[in-house]
């Protein structure tokens, strides 16, 4: 089999959380392009219906299930609905997450509830999904888990406590999945850089990415092929790893002086 054929996902069932917009939608569409049938989940029914429509236009099936990943009974019900429809889950993409109340608060101003919501949204939700899905993968003898972390899971931010802690936690949770379930289950992470999701205000906030070495922000559709790559047979020996897609940001830091200063070497 040629190397490009290994990127096909025909006959696979992929569950994507947070599939209603942004990266979740882009990854869902890429998985469908590669031949997978989808289960699109998120809290907002109308958004996952839109994603499902786009998937179906590609000739793939798409089940929509509303689900709040921070509620374990909701996750359990989503997984049961999926298994009732398809009988299997080959690929789980834990993409749900994002900014929660008190996101940029000073530490003394983060109340208990804010803290728990932040951790639940960006870490516990993925844990609940893995807990519900991985036993089925183990039973069937294979499975791919793709967790979406962030550059903030690898580096810190000022007045950024809940999000950085949760995303860092997700990284080491994933490595422990590897230690426990490899090689049957492959668990890897995607760390997107600055992706404004077609939001002009966000793009402006990030100054259009001019401090990123590549000089631009990420496009949602650039995440799709990476997701397919990690879900495919091409990466069967890759496990517990993070792929950072960020235009060079983390290689040197998103700083005004982050790239290409020329300093002459004296005395040569």
């Amino acid at each position, binding site marked *: 089999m040629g*190397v490009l054929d290994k990127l096909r996902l025909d006959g696979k069932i992929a569950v994507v959380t947070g599939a209603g917009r942004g990266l979740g939608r882009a990854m869902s569409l890429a998985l469908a392009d*590669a031949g997978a049938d989808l289960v699109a989940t998120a809290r907002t029914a109308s958004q996952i219906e839109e994603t499902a429509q786009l998937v179906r236009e590609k000739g793939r099936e798409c089940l929509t299930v509303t689900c709040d990943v921070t509620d374990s009974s909701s996750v359990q019900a989503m997984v049961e609905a999926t298994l009732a429809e398809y009988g299997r889950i080959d690929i789980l993409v834990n993409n749900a997450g994002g900014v929660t109340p008190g996101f940029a608060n000073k530490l003394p101003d983060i109340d208990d509830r804010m803290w728990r919501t932040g951790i639940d949204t960006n870490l516990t939700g993925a844990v609940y999904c893995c807990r519900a899905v991985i036993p089925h993968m183990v039973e069937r003898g294979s499975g791919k888990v793709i967790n979406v972390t962030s550059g903030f899971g690898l580096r810190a931010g000022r007045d950024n406590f809940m999000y950085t802690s949760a995303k860092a936690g997700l990284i080491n949770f994933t490595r422990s999945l590897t230690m426990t379930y490899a090689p049957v289950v492959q668990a890897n992470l995607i760390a997107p850089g600055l992706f404004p999701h077609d939001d002009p205000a966000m793009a402006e906030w990030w100054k259009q990415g001019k401090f990123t070495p*590549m000089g631009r922000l990420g496009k949602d559709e*650039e995440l799709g*092929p990476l997701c397919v*790559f990690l879900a495919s047979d*091409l990466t069967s020996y890759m496990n517990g*790893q993070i792929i950072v897609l960020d235009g060079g940001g983390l290689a040197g830091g998103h700083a005004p002086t982050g*790239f*290409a200063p020329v300093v002459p070497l004296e005395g040569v």
Partner: protein
Amino acid sequence: MQEEFSLRDRNALVIGAANSLGRAAAVALAEAGANVGVSTTIRSRAEEVAANSCANEVWALDRKGFAQAIDAADEADVDALVARAVSEFGRLDILVNAHDLPFARPLVEISAQEWRRAIDVNLTAVFLASRAAGRHMLERAQTGARPGGSGRIINVASVLGERGMANGAAYCAAQAGVINMTRALALEWARAGITVNCIGAGWTEGMGIIGGEEGRRQLERYLPYKRLAKPEEITGVAVYLASDAAEYLTGQVIWVEGGALSHV
């Protein structure tokens, strides 16, 4: 979706095609559509035979290719190799630095000459090849980028660039050097549309294992996969990194090591 990963009409050069990862990378790139020239890491009859055999696999896939014997630490050899790739293909899009010269000895027994040779072939050789290919790619970047950017540089480093190993000081230092050179060069050439990444390879079939059979058994017990990687399981990453799909990915080490680095 496969179109985004296709390397049709791209031209690649793989240095170090006599070792198992270099060979597999060359074949994977050719399978994905690229023309591939290959070279040895050092001048030896065994390496030359292996590089020729790799070129045969490229031709068997109906791609253009060639094999050349070089010493990868020799400036003139490397410049001539890159010039040949440019002249035979008309353009060089992808450089894979798969040089590998395993070396292990207690530090107090390493001569200065041995140390320099280990660093030269494992690290300086990557600089030489990147410089030669980079000059060509940067020049092309100024005359208008093509789809997928102006160039792709893919280094192959070892888990020993991230973890230490007793008796491996020279090799570990060189591999770590390749990893951080990858990051620095990625920043330097980001605006020219040249991505620079590194494949972090785990313990692989066909590569030298320190400690012989007993060392290998120990290693297999330790690895979450309970086995070494097959070269083809690692080099698929080269196809992804070389493709249009990875245009925004630069300065990264992509580890394929069967969970070895997740281990305490």
